[in-house]
């Protein structure tokens, strides 16, 4: 990993922690942005962590670009000596895999897909070496995921699978993007899963849908009254497969203001994870039980 | 004979047919009524219908299919 700094015009500094995606790169990016936030640097306007890089927007009339750069380099120096523990939360996200709505949508855009004869999840299962879709769903919902970035559009989480790289699911994006994706679709592109926060264009493969809203600008959803965006970078997610009846019940509960997402506080240690991936994941998942 | 020009209200790209594989809305010599669609303007990922604001016969199209246009540019000339 070699950190690279580059100015994005006169108001941004872009910091690439690593060219390739890894949990280590994400962790370093997150700890550096946390350090920038807690330093409360005058002139800093936006602190945006992403997968293996991050970005700071600043007012160069208040802090010059050269000063901004040297402050970040100091923070990088300190970040390399800190322990790799993160106090965060684990969230269970119910997913209705192979639902009728994403199915209807993917059938409409078949000519934009690599393999028009099968569905997105059948294709993803096959190219990742799973004989049956059920086995693929077990893999997608079996391990926890790190929210490594929130963005693209309002409230959309990118999630990185917490498994050994050899087991990581990888899927190409559509050959050309769709003009439509149902709201709350569980998508997949490259090595990232996502949840579409709003309806709109998209190029990720579609596996299913969650009944649980994650963005509500009107703040009517009970658990989004304090803030309209559900996810934060650093959240840990566990997908839970559900059937149609459960899906319908949760939708009704959300509409009635009764649904409470399952959320538990956890501390994640990168060092423990690297020593024992399965054991660390199991401890995380146990917290949800 | 009096002439009238249909003016583009928008900048963008002009199309004389609803989609590439369909026939033109109107051809030279066709009669048009007020409100008839004579073309589309593509702007900001949406398409806007251009309606005739007069009744008459199309004397000529002043822009080609897929031609860039300015707001205020004459698109079609009518014989009233």
């Amino acid at each position: 990993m070699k950190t690279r700094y580059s100015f994005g015009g006169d108001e941004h500094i872009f910091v690439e922690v690593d060219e390739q995606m890894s949990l280590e790169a994400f962790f370093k990016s997150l700890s550096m942005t946390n350090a920038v936030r807690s330093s409360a640097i005058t002139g800093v306007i936006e602190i945006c962590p992403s997968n293996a890089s991050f970005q700071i927007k600043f007012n160069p009339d208040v802090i010059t670009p050269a000063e901004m750069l040297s402050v970040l380099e100091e923070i990088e120096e300190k970040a390399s000596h800190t322990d790799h523990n993160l106090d965060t939360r684990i969230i269970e996200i119910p997913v209705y895999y192979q639902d009728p709505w994403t199915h209807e949508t993917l059938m409409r855009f078949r000519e934009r897909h690599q393999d028009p004869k099968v569905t997105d999840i059948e294709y993803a299962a096959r190219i990742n070496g799973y004989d049956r879709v059920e086995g693929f769903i077990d893999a997608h919902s079996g391990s926890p995921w790190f929210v490594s970035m929130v963005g693209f559009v309002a409230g959309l989480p990118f999630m990185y699978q917490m498994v050994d790289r050899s087991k990581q699911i990888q899927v190409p994006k559509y050959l050309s993007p769709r003009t439509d994706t149902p709201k709350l679709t569980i998508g997949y592109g490259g090595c990232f899963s996502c949840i579409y926060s709003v309806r709109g264009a998209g190029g990720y493969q579609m596996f299913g849908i969650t009944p649980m809203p994650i963005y509500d600008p009107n703040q009517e959803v009970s658990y989004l009254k304090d803030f309209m965006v559900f996810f934060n970078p650093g959240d840990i997610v566990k997908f839970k497969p559900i059937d149609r009846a459960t899906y319908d019940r949760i939708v009704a509960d959300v509409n009635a203001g009764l649904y409470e997402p399952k959320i538990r506080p956890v501390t994640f240690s990168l060092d423990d994870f690297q020593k024992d991936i399965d054991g660390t994941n199991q401890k995380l998942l146990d917290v949800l039980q | 004979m009096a002439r009238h020009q249909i003016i583009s209200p928008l900048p963008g790209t002009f199309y004389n047919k609803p989609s590439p594989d369909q026939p033109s809305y109107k051809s030279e010599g066709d009669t048009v009524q007020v409100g008839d669609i004579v073309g589309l303007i593509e702007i900001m990922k949406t398409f806007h219908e251009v309606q005739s604001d007069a009744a008459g016969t199309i004397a000529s199209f002043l822009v080609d299919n897929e031609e860039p246009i300015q707001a205020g540019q004459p698109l079609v000339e009518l014989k009233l």
Partner: protein
Amino acid sequence: MTIRVTQPGLSTTVQDLGRPGYFHLGIPISGGMDRFALRAANLLVGNDEGAAVLEAVFMGPALEFTVDAIVAVTGAEMTPKVDDQLRETWTSFAVKAGQILSFEILKSGARAYIAIAGGIDVPMALGSRSTYSLGGLGGHEGRALVVDDELSLGQAGLGAKSGIHIAPKLRRSPGNPAELRMLPGLYWHRVTDVSGRNFFDDTWQVAPEADRIGYRFRGGRKLEFVDREQPFGAGSDPSNIVDGCYPYGSVQVPGGTEPIVLHRDAVSGGGYFMLGTVISADMDLIGQLQPHTATRFIEVTLEGAMKARRGRQNLLDELRASLD
């Protein structure tokens, strides 16, 4: 104290100076694309510079007033009319209760800013009245205006009067060809030296799909990439990177063919490499570009960007002084 929309125009939205602070959650700053013109419109009617105004793109709305008001229109040349009587742009004028404000066909520029004394009084959302349409947030019900929408007005200041004018030398508009100054960087190293030179040598045209999220350009030569094995997680196309943050003004070139300059409603990140960033001083100019406008990208240094920034601030100071 309201105005009623009798014709919405193409896409007319409530905008102010935007909502910084939420880009890390994918919520962009939004606000007027041409902030210089937005500030000028507010100053002409005695508002705070950042009061909420209407931004009308390519085609003006028609608005029926239920109260007497002072109005100013800046930005694009789209002549305002009060009950069909022409008024000047960049000059405040009175509209009486019962009169209708409408607009002639666009002559030049792209976005007109319609400031009304007292400002547009929609609810604040995350500290701003700006509309972010993609997220359904802010403005009037999170969307562009439609027929029969009614907008409340704030209390006009004592300084609001008609006949205040901003001289042409204190306005800004893009030239022909438009010139956008860009600081190379970010993933500039991904393209070959020849492609980097071509990018600045070529004349590009604004694509008709350009909007508040981003301005797309076409017509220049396709970029060639430096060979590499794609990093893990980046995707297979040479223009792909591991999804990262996008600066405002950053220039991404998906597939190496058509540059897109992200603007006020930017997507906050994604998987396309970026060549560099259009400097803050020139972001306003992009908001006034019509489709098919010839555009050149001009290479600048960081020092050049800071100098241009001060130049723009000085012009704004001159404009303020001229109205005192």
